């Protein structure tokens, strides 16, 4: 009885997840050592810890979660509707975006008295 479960794919996915995790663990130390400083824009973002490394970590974790869903949970082989239902919690990313954007806007305004007075 043959199986269309591809062990090769599973093991490749496993190694991909392992390597991406190692990169993730390496990023914060690397960023603290070499980067995430010091221009004015970066200072603004630094207030909320939103360095390039943060975005890299977000991207890596979402990629890893996607790989687990697609290959280990077999979503790749499911119908469009099941894929759609499965991805619904990702709507939280929209709320996260609004929250982040509003917080940065508030921070920006509070640190620019001229802009603030123009609004008033």
């Amino acid at each position, binding site marked *: *009885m*043959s*199986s*269309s*479960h591809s*062990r090769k794919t*599973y*093991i490749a*996915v*496993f190694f991909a*997840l*392992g390597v991406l*995790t190692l990169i*993730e*663990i390496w*990023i*914060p*130390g690397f960023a*603290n050592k070499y980067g995430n400083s010091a221009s004015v824009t970066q200072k603004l973002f630094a*207030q*909320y*810890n939103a360095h390039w490394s*943060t975005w890299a*970590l*977000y991207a*890596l*974790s*979402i990629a*890893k*979660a996607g790989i*687990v*869903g697609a290959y*280990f*949970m*077999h979503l790749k*082989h*499911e*119908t*469009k*509707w*099941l894929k759609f*239902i*499965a991805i*619904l*919690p990702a*709507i*939280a990313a929209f*709320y*996260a975006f609004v*929250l*982040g954007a509003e*917080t940065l806007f508030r921070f920006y305004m509070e640190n620019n008295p001229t802009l603030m007075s123009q609004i008033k």
Partner: protein
Amino acid sequence: MSHAPAASHAGHNHGSGHGHDHGSEHGHSSIGHVIDHDFGAATNGKIAMWIFLVTDGLTFAGLLLGYGYLRMRNPQWPNPQELLGIALTGAATFLLICSSLSMVLSLAAAAEKKKSSMLMWLFLTALGGAGFLGIQYYEYSHLVHEGMTISGLAKPEHLEGAWRFAGVPENFASTFYIVTGFHGLHVTTGVIYLLVLLIKGMRQREITPEFYNVLEIGGLFWHFVDLVWILVFTFIYLV
């Protein structure tokens, strides 16, 4: 559609997923065996598990958004890597990824009706989950010993070990325990679920398509626990 060859004998014809085959050659003419137009050959149990996972995913999303809000509004929030053990938790993360691999290998063995191989991989999956919980217990006991509990942080003048938390907002402790604890509860549930599947599997004389289906549904829960941890690990420990 045909990643589950064993299940194709469960009275379902996988077909193209568009409802052309109605399994009439198996003598099932009842409407319950029609291949669903929207969900293909996915069984009711599998769809139900997916819907549960969506609600559970939204619960985690709510907790993480609350955490994100508290953190963004608090510029004194520390760099979590300086207070939490990344190496240890990285090992725990790797353990969960290993257990996700052993789960799919167990399912692959079940698809080939290799019972002992299926049981071995399933046992290793449960063992990986138990190992994760062991690491979490070790981590929690250290943090509690240093004065970090779910309701806040001890002050250095009250507890010698608490010097590391000087100036750290109390929400750092609460959000950490609430999010990782809720995930730990899922791992605990998952390990129990896997052990139940293991006992059920041992009682099978041979792997039936019905058991394959039950195993696949259990696997979905376990992979979800891994998937959520990937996000929790990044948001709570690394960022």
